[in-house]
């Protein structure tokens, strides 16, 4: 495939060009002690991170890398499926849609596991039933992906088969090479991507540079410390619903919901009527929900999953087993966020291994 070679200045030209066209460019920003996804004008330079179960530290790299960080707590889902969204309001007995005209967005720096997660949420929100808000935002979106040149301590996308090389679905794919003085290999997967390349220009990449990309990806794969056996996982989990290890996890799990809120595929939401105390206007609000709350499984008469054990088991078996039946794919893309951002460091890969070990 034809590839261009860009300098950091070319990447900046891409950002500037998109912004001039009125596209909201969303990408990495250095926030409070972590890389966050937000509206950006430039890319942060020389940041990395250190991750382990329940542990994240933003670090300084001694190079000029723009994509030398791994995943932070932000996910792209916050822009496509916002944490809180007004659906409709009722005024004087009239139902009025709250849907806004979608803005054009570009996600810059989408990793392979994240691209896979977006494709999973596409199935959820635009599969058998279409969520109009999600669909309109999704249709006005450019995806600029980045191949990972390093893995964090919690990455396991090689095990799930979602990375580290970016798969299909991106408009443009960048690979950052030689971090001390970076340059970028750029390839388009769509027409929109091709026109972004044309707008910026740049020379064609040399064959040796393309080899360098493959070597970088191979090194990233080797760097991953976590392994996760996906074969036969649905059957194994369903066969282990009474496994004693669920009780052991429940002794550590806080049922706080963090894992679900940072998961790029978790899609649960709840709705409620918000009453304006002055005008008495009612707005139908949708917000992120989690299978770790009592309200999530509240049906008339009580909570179906009252114990922490039942909630953790629900989350894990849905994510890794039920999802396959529902959507034809696993709900896990190996990003490792649930491992990093669990306050007590519960590690999905280890829990699954434990549950599979003695069944």
């Amino acid at each position: 495939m034809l590839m261009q070679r860009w300098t950091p200045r070319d990447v900046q030209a891409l950002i500037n060009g998109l912004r001039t066209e009125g596209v909201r460019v969303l990408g990495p920003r250095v926030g409070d002690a972590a890389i966050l996804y937000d509206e950006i004008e430039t890319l942060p330079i020389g940041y990395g991170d250190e991750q382990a179960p329940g542990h994240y530290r933003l670090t300084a790299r001694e190079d000029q890398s723009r994509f030398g960080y791994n995943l932070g707590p932000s996910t792209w889902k916050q822009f496509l499926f916002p944490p809180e969204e007004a659906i409709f309001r009722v005024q004087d007995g009239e139902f009025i849609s709250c849907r806004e005209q979608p803005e054009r967005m570009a996600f810059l720096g989408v990793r392979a596991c994240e691209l896979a997660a977006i494709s999973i949420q596409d199935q959820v929100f635009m599969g058998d039933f279409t969520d109009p808000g999600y669909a309109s935002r999704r249709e006005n979106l450019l995806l600029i992906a980045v191949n990972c040149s390093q893995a964090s301590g919690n990455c396991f996308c090689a095990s799930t088969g979602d990375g580290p090389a970016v798969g299909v679905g991106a408009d443009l794919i960048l690979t950052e090479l030689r971090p001390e003085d970076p340059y970028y290999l750029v390839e388009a997967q769509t027409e929109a991507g091709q026109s972004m390349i044309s707008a910026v220009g740049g020379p064609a990449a040399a064959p040796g540079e393309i080899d360098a990309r493959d070597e970088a990806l191979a090194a990233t794969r080797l760097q991953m410390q976590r392994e996760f056996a996906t074969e036969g996982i649905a059957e194994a989990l369903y066969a282990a619903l009474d496994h004693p290890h669920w009780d052991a996890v429940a002794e550590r799990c806080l049922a706080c919901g963090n894992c679900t809120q940072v998961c790029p595929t978790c899609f649960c939401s709840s709705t409620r009527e918000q009453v304006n105390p002055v005008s008495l206007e009612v707005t139908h609000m949708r917000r992120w929900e989690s299978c770790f709350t009592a309200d999530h499984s509240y049906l008339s008469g009580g909570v179906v999953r009252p114990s922490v054990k039942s909630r953790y088991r629900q989350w894990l078996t849905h994510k890794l087993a039920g999802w396959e039946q529902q959507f034809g794919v696993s709900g896990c893309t190996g990003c490792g966020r649930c491992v990093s951002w669990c306050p007590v460091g519960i590690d999905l890969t280890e829990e699954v291994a434990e549950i599979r070990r003695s069944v």
Partner: protein
Amino acid sequence: MARSDRPRLAVFKFASCDGCQLSLLDCEDELLSIAERLDIVHFPEASRRMLTGPYDIALVEGSITTAHDRERLTEIREQSGFLVSIGACATAGGLQAMRNFADVSDYARTVYPHPEYLSTLETSTPIADYVAVDYELHGCPVDKYQLLEVVLAFASGRRPQIARESVCMECKARGNVCVLVAQGQHCLGPITQAGCGALCPAYSRGCYGCFGVKEQAQVGPLIDHLRAHHGMTLSQARRSLRAYNPAAEPLQIIALQCDKDDVSGSKKGSGGHDG
């Protein structure tokens, strides 16, 4: 609505700082609308007009610390349709419940020149320990929007929509970076009920737990983890669990466990004692 048709609202105070009932006055934009829909018949903090019961809705702030308060509370209960206790004092004893873990006469001697004039109970306890409570609203102080929601819900005969989930849920929705994971701070967010909008973590400070315990709070596992991995001492653990909501049972149990660990640590000479 004619004043006589409106639900009658009363506000009462027990041992507390007044901060929760002030949250009602703090509803500046909404206050006139509330006053049009409810007849505020007893609210000494706001008006000299203080009518007698019965009341449709009673908001009760503060904890019970004297025998006299206990009697007064019983009368309020008899006069009230819905009784809603508001704030950490009314729902979980408040800061003043630190007496529950000490000798109150020691405190009295230290603070007052003539403690013999004091008549006080040994403990500071929640409203629900003495009378039936229809709803408990957490917070130190309560959040004014949650307070509005509860008042309007009871006034219109529906259930209040107050989430019982963790502060973490609000933290993530707000886009805060977890101060526990990214900075190793001692944060009580995972066991604390949402409602504050994750205020402290939004300013890079761990949650103090002022909104009380969430549903299914896993207090022990969080404290174990903070002690094992983030340098929390037994003394810090006890103090954080006995700060705002000391009478909340899940916090009490683990605080007592910390006391026991402390004693056994000192006996073994393992250096577990830290003050």
